[in-house]
């Protein structure tokens, strides 16, 4: 779960990571309350789950109360890349001497956390690595709650950070790392980490990505999860404990399967035959008829989808439950084609139920045969 900027700042504050002062506002009325709390000029930033807000007009400055109210109200009324701006984040404007980069994330190769720091920041880290690889320190960290002093000293020596910033830098690293561990982060990034004109280090903007599987430990952020999930079908699916995955904006096929591997395999095979999957839904294990009915309705409600491919290899999942789910939903979905492959537990029972539904459901035996059927249909 990727936190919005204002929420990232909240957790920075919680862990005493020095960051800029700011207020969150979700209605024009609330703007008045912010006036007086920050010194002008202030920065007003749209809080939406997408990049390049600035270019879209989602970041503005206000020199005084009037501008604050005007610009704030304007941004609150905007929509950026189709996303309605529900919240804005109003912060002090910081005078910056230098922009740096600091993050903690997972290193898949070593299965450990990694600290990445560069005294050049403000842009995407991949860009920094490309331009100034020698100015990037990347240190794998042992499993643990704290970061060792000698590790930070190494980073300092490696990147040549000035003596006068050492203490503040170590302090920020320690606190951000503690936050990274305690909040089950996959990423805790400060970019830019600025040196202010007054010579202090501050987190100006941050990205915090929290492990979905650990959200139960963090109820204070969990409640914001649905708010920032902008795709209504993802939300609907989550309500039934399904994973809905938008694949391509183009495409006309929706895939329903009972496992991540099978979904990927289905998409791979379909794509290989020149067809395009627009979305997929993972039922997980052991879905019942009623839940399967809902899954079908969700996928069918995507206007792009005109063909649904149900590919089930049942272990815990029972083929007869799948078939009953199809039966229950068949009148509610207006999809053009429905191709079904059933294998595994209670296969025969399931096939019988499907055959009884009749209509133009295409029953296939095997994944390959299913994809063949899809391809034939497309060629018609």
């Amino acid at each position, binding site marked *: 779960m990727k936190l919005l900027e204002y929420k990232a700042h909240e957790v920075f504050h919680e862990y005493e990571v020095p960051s800029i002062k700011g207020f969150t506002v979700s209605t024009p009325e609330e703007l008045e309350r912010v006036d007086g709390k920050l010194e002008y000029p202030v920065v007003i930033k749209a809080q939406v789950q997408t990049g390049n807000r600035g270019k879209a007009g989602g970041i503005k400055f206000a020199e005084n109360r009037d501008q604050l109210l005007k610009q704030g109200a304007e941004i609150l009324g905007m929509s950026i890349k189709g996303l309605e701006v529900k919240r804005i984040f109003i912060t002090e404007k910081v005078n910056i001497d230098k922009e740096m980069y600091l993050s903690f994330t*997972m290193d*898949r*190769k070593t*299965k*450990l*956390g990694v600290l990445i720091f560069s005294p050049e920041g403000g842009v995407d880290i*991949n860009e920094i690595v490309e331009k100034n690889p020698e100015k990037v320190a990347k240190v794998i960290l*042992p*499993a643990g709650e704290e970061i060792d002093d000698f590790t930070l000293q190494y980073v300092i020596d490696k990147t040549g950070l000035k003596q006068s910033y050492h203490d503040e830098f170590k302090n920020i690293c320690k606190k951000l790392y503690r936050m990274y*561990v305690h909040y*089950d982060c*996959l990423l805790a990034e400060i970019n830019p980490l600025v040196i202010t004109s007054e010579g202090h280090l501050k987190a100006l903007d941050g990205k915090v990505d929290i*492990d*979905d*599987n*650990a959200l*139960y*430990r963090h109820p204070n952020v969990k409640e914001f999860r649905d708010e920032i999930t902008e795709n209504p079908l993802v939300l609907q699916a989550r309500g039934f404990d399904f*994973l809905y*995955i*938008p*694949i*391509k904006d183009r495409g006309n096929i929706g895939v329903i*399967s*009972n*496992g*991540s*591997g*099978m*979904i*990927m*395999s289905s*998409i*791979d*095979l*379909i*794509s*290989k035959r020149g067809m395009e*999957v627009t979305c997929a839904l*993972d039922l*997980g294990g052991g879905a019942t008829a009623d839940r399967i009915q809902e899954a079908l309705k969700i996928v069918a409600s995507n206007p792009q989808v005109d063909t649904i491919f149900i590919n089930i*290899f*049942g*272990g*815990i999942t029972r083929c007869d439950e799948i078939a009953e789910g199809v039966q229950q939903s068949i009148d509610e979905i207006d999809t053009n084609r429905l191709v079904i492959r059933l*294998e*595994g*537990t209670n296969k025969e029972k399931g096939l019988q139920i499907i055959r009884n539904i009749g209509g133009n459901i295409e029953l296939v035996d095997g*994944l*390959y045969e299913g994809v063949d059927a899809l391809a034939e249909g497309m060629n018609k």
Partner: protein
Amino acid sequence: MSFFVDENTRLIVQGITGREGTFHTEQMQQYGTNVVAGVTPGKGGTEVLGVPVYNTVREAMERHEANASVLFVPPKFLYGAAYEAIMSGVPLVMTIAEGTPVHDMLKLHHLAKEKGVQLIGPNSFGVISPGKAKAGFMAHRIFSKGRVGVMSRSATNCYETVFLLKNAGIGQSTVVGVGGDMIPGSTFVDVLPFYEKDPDTDVVIMIGEIGGSEEELAAEYIKKYVTKPVIALIAGKNAPKDTSMGHAGAIVSPDGEGSAESKEEKLRAAGVHIAESTEDILRIVKTLV
């Protein structure tokens, strides 16, 4: 021979008194697995399906000379249960739960290595040596005894493969669910040496997917140490970047790390047969056995 689980396995089931634990204990027993003890804190002294239940793994180990444990516990309790098993000297710990926090697995992965414990999973169906024993929840009817080894990040792709193999009359030696999480207890590289030295395995099938670098590391290892033929499938070629495909581990970074292309290229260079699909695996296996 086979490895991990077989006729010599003396299995502990952690979480045996839970619904899933009891159901699958029965399944495992019916398959012939020697379940010697169960562990559920607070339920010590009771019995499930004729299996004595203890409060602690340590007591179960001492009383039954167990040599493996399988965990049927929810993801919230996986860390605690696996930690207890590792610290109690269980040499092989198999975990099932889907949805374990990454930071929990980070700690367990390294703890197991440090203590010399083989940790398998989570987000895995477990381990099965067909005809001998199983530890996990896999639908064992589709497996058959034979000389092909299979290890997989995905349960469904593994089922599909094993199903095709069985229909073609090709059995398996040991099938390991490495699991779909970002940090598994054991990676392909950790399991490969067992296949290499298992006299009952002729061919190894590795079912990988996008995300991470396990397949690349496996390629390096295979190049150096594996003499048996290896067939690999990488699922997720057409998955969008920076999007979770369900498995926590199956995600290609925005910078392209973890792409199917990189994996296939490295595997090919290591002499691994690349399969385009589960059906393609079957085609290649037939040329090798």
